[in-house]
């Protein structure tokens, strides 16, 4: 909707009235309801196709949805005999791993990325190292790290590696993408190098950091699966899926996959929401 600007003369000054956003709200509400209905419909179609397919193929590898949902519910209610844990325990374990790996990556990537984007010297020093490590799929580290650092720390480091590089590249890219004219403006207003860093570079990089976080979390969830498959200590959804595959409990395998989907989806959705909120707060849209 176009902005309505109404100018009125008052003491020789022009003042403005903010645009009304009443109709905007109802518009959005209708759009929201529409999206929900379509989502429900699409998911129903998906489950229907799944059901049909499972009946048609009739193989234990593709159990029908009702059996899977039963297994899913059950997995949350009581600990299963293979892992000795409830799905809830496993979710907590996996989430803690992702959180640790993520926090580590965040704490290191943000300052490093900002400095690398800002200072040519630091960049030329660290770029070769970063470029050597970046193309290595984080999962490739998993077997080594699990042996070298054990089943507790190893998975966290795998996730760290997974999250670190996309976050770092995004931040460096963010610093580079700052409009030069904003720096000029800051300089004419008296900003020195330090001021520039704190008051211009960091805030204008925030959107890129947020995007990096969202992408990084998605990768984090993929890494945790790999690490848990390879022998993480202390449970986890990945471990559950692996053992259930071994005993051919495919209903429970699918339950685990659904949990992964929900976890991955909700973290990226959540960070997407935070991203939008922050952007809005910062007036960046």
């Amino acid at each position, binding site marked *: 909707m176009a*902005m309505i*600007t109404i*100018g009125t003369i008052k003491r*020789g*000054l*022009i*003042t*403005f009235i*903010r645009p009304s956003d009443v109709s905007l709200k109802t518009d959005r509400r209708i759009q929201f309801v529409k999206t929900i209905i379509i989502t429900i419909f699409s998911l129903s179609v998906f489950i229907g196709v799944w059901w049909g397919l499972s009946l048609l193929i009739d193989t234990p590898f593709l159990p029908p949805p009702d059996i899977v949902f039963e297994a899913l519910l059950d997995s949350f209610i009581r600990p299963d005999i293979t892992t000795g844990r409830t799905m809830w325990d496993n979710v907590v374990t996996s989430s803690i791993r992702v959180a640790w790996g993520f926090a580590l990556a965040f704490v290191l990537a943000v300052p490093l990325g900002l400095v690398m984007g800002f200072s040519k010297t630091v960049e030329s020093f660290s770029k070769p190292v970063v470029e050597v490590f970046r193309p290595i799929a984080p999962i490739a580290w998993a077997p080594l790290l699990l042996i070298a650092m054990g089943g507790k720390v190893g998975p966290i480091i795998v996730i760290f590696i997974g999250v670190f590089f996309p976050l770092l590249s995004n931040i460096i890219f963010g610093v580079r993408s700052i*409009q030069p*004219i*904003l720096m*000029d*403006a*800051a*300089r*004419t*207003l*008296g*900003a*020195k190098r330090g*001021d520039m860093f704190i*008051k*211009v570079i960091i*805030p*204008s990089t*925030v959107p890129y950091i947020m995007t990096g976080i969202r992408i990084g979390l998605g990768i984090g969830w993929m890494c945790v699966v790999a690490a848990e498959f390879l022998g993480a200590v202390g449970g986890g959804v990945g471990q559950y899926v692996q053992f259930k595959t071994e005993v051919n409990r495919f209903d429970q395998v699918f339950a685990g996959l659904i949990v992964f989907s929900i976890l991955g989806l909700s973290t990226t959705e959540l960070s997407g929401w935070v991203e939008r909120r922050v952007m809005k707060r*910062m*007036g*960046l*849209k």
Partner: protein
Amino acid sequence: MMLSIEKLRKAFPLEEGELVAIEDFTLDVKKGEFICILGPSGCGKTTILRIIAGLDTQTSGKISLDGKIIKGPGSDRGMVFQEFALFPWRSVRKNIEFGMELRKVPVKTRHETSQKLIELVGLEGFEDAHPHELSGGMKQRVGIARALANEPDILLMDEPFGALDAQTRNMMQKELLRIWEETKKTVVFITHSVDEAVFLADRIVVMGERPSSITEIYDIPWERPRERASMEFANLRKEILAKLEMMVRPE
């Protein structure tokens, strides 16, 4: 005499040779004077302004402000950009307070000053709005207030109203004159519009084709507000237009 530009030369190095944007540009600007610089596109208007602001350095020549040689950006010169260059993550108030924050002005004084400036540029009610919520004219009001907040001696404006529609532009010209009269700042104002220059300036500096220096200076000692419909306005405008047209070589 306040701003003094002496034999300014600016050459940009190219892959082969150099591009001489400005050659032998000399100008003195008096305190409180409203100067407009006119000239064909690419003649080096922005370059001159950026050098005055300290964002660029000249190849040779001397620029001084109140006798002090200009070495870099400083809060004695405020700049207003055609693209507004507002900090999108800062509210109107925070944009205006940016320079004061850097100078560590106490919060209370900062608020008082920014409030005064918001009133001066007519943005009451929009203190907490972010730039993306503002129209072009409003954005440039913020740009002007932000530049004024540092209490500069001189206001450097690079086609500040170039991105605005004709109506808003006319309104903003009046607003600017009002602010200028209230604050008594020296203004160096770059524009493409002869009409705008004649409406605003005490003196109009017309620049020629690259490598450019000053082709002509027009004194306009008329009263303000000026009447666009008047004969003398129309005549002067025609004269300058003709001058400019002569300079633009047929392509």
